[in-house]
């Protein structure tokens, strides 16, 4: 079998090497270009529009194509089509557009299409707070399309990480043939910070796992629960079929409970069984912690302030930042819950990821939610108060 995953250096054409002062939305576009994304179908929505605009501007320089579609459903579906046309693709959106894309996320999961979607989160529900920050789509990204499936979701906490995680998202999507989501937010999206884009040869890019064997033996799917079959593109002469219906490894509809079990088990296991390889967290002071603050994205930048203040007051407070939110680091939480007094979970929603923390902690320690209705980041005081409560 061919080398897998095949890792190469980024194509210098797409890499804007240098030190930049850039916002998160633009950094996302640069990360995608560096990862080899050359097709982007999108639809404008605050606070994500700048990514689409950046892509539209940069595309001609790198030989890529940007198209503004008639709506988000068209955007995401065109992207799925473009993957089968052989391209690496990305789109960005925010709440209302994210909701519109849900059905097609299921199609992408079902067709095992590698693609990247960024949700620059804003306050909801509905049109909500178009210009203000939130982290309210964290469960939607995991469960939003109907049926059972798995996805990967990463959460950047800075413009630099928007760049870095965009590259990583593409790489993961190619390895596992799965849609990968970057769950950023309005604050990170619009915040300008230093973004260092390394030279192309230092950026490692996973190439599509192209099939190279005999034509007669080609199967678009392999239900191995690992990473699935190598891909071809339309026009390569394989004359294959792909459908959103439950299918067999030939891609042909196969509509029994038994068939569905084979397919679904694969879709789920290729992520669940590789969770340890996929999951990335940042941690500090966990070794002897009594209390741990678990947070992600912009909220972790506020949380760290509260953690510092608490430590100054002599409390043993650990800090765990989820870079990968889905799959969820449940083993980590389970282990922590067995030895700490409390886990504090601040997030810019009314309590979403805290539910996962509670599930994994399984009553072994206190779990304190520091929830919010979105619209503004926390005051570190609120998190500090929760830490104090946990220390009692």
């Amino acid at each position, binding site marked *: 079998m061919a080398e897998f995953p095949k890792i190469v250096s980024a194509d210098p054409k797409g890499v804007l090497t240098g030190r930049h002062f850039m916002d998160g939305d633009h950094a996302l576009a640069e990360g995608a270009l560096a990862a080899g994304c050359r097709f982007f179908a999108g639809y404008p929505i605050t606070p994500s529009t700048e990514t689409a605009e950046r892509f539209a501007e940069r595309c001609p320089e790198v*030989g890529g194509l940007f198209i503004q579609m*008639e709506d988000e459903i068209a955007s995401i579906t065109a992207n799925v089509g473009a993957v089968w046309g052989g391209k690496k693709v990305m789109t960005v959106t925010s709440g209302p557009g994210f909701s519109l894309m849900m*059905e097609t996320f299921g199609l992408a999961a079902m067709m095992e299409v590698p693609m990247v979607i960024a949700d620059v989160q804003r306050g909801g529900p509905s049109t909500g707070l178009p210009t203000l920050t939130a982290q309210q789509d964290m469960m939607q990204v995991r469960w939003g399309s109907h049926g059972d499936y798995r996805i990967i979701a990463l959460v950047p906490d800075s413009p630099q990480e928007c760049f870095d995680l965009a590259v990583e998202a593409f790489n993961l999507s190619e390895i596992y043939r799965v849609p990968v989501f970057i769950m950023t937010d309005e604050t990170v999206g619009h915040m300008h910070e230093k973004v260092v884009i390394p030279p192309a040869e230092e950026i490692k890019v996973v190439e599509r796992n192209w099939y190279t064997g005999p034509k007669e033996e080609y199967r678009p799917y392999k239900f191995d629960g690992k990473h699935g079959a190598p891909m071809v593109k339309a*026009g390569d002469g394989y*004359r294959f079929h792909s459908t959103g219906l439950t299918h067999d490894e030939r891609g*042909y509809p196969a509509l029994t409970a038994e068939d569905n079990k084979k397919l679904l088990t694969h879709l789920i296991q290729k992520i669940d069984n590789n969770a340890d390889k996929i999951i990335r967290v940042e941690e500090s002071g966990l070794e002897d912690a009594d209390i741990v603050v678990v947070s992600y994205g912009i909220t972790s930048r506020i949380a760290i302030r509260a953690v510092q203040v608490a430590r100054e007051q002599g409390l043993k407070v650990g800090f765990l930042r989820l870079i990968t939110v889905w799959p969820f680091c449940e083993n980590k939480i389970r282990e922590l819950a067995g030895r700490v007094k409390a886990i504090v979970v601040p997030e810019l929603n009314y309590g979403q990821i805290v539910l996962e923390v509670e599930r994994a902690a399984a009553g072994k320690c206190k779990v304190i939610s520091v929830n919010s209705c979105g619209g503004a980041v926390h005051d570190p005081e609120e998190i500090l108060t929760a830490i104090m409560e946990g220390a009692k």
Partner: protein
Amino acid sequence: MSELSPTPEYSLDDNAFREQNPMAEFLRMERMPHIWCPGCGIGTVVTSFAEAIKAGGYDMDKIAVVSGIGCTGRVAGYVKFDSFHTTHGRAIPFATGLKLANPELKVVVISGDGDLTSIGGNHLIHAARRNMDMTVICVNNFTYGMTGGQVTPTTPTSANASTTPYGNTEPAFSLPFLVDAAGATYVARWTSLHARNITKSIGEAMKHRGFSFIEVISPCTTLYQRRNRLGDGVSAMEYYREDGEIQHGADTRTVDIGYQGKIAMGKFVDRPRDTYLDAVVKHLTSVIGDDYELYGKTPMEKKAEEEARKSAAGKGESADICEDGC
């Protein structure tokens, strides 16, 4: 095939039949028998499509078929091309991405009236407006076949459907008028009785650069025909023969179809206009300069090519030297 229709009784699993079938080159014979009811017009469209490809001498590896959801949506699963069965209404945006990602493909969308004009109506008009280079074949049976005979945007006023049990009160879209107004550059309509004309139109449409649209009026025998007491497939053919009228070049404002009324047929629109991609590439070349290249080779690819050329030149030096005019 609707839940209401009987299980088709075929005995086609005879391998010899499959291999000898003249359609074997175009169809995934291992998937036969298909799900369509006896007398349904969808099969005719598939046959005409295959005939058009045979006649056009296309490289079959470069044809991609995209369908949405419905009885017609199942076409993608039976044809032996790169083929995609997508979500309800979204065949056109999927096809858009596919075509733009790999412009050497001939992309053909085959789907139903409900799929393309109701849930997918917005995509239809925008693809026409952009003159996206693809052929869209709409099997218009005036109903949602797959889900059991509900009303669609093309159901003639007063016709009976399962969700208009007292008769349809809404006016219907006239599809040639709709897509013409939206910017389609090739528009034709036939009925499923006119298989040879469909074949010819599909051939023309596939040769046409830009957004081509072919409407095929086709019987849903199990639901539309039965519910409206219009008889079987044969009765539908009689209706098409009597009321189908060839009007090439007709003003699309005049070609709407009333309940069991006249059906104007023929090629209504055929005009040149830059496709979406032609316009993009032309414009960007004029703005950015001649080194603009869509999906141009990456520097690494160019380097690899250069090296390959050098090493090939190393092996066959004499030929190269002579060509250089020594």
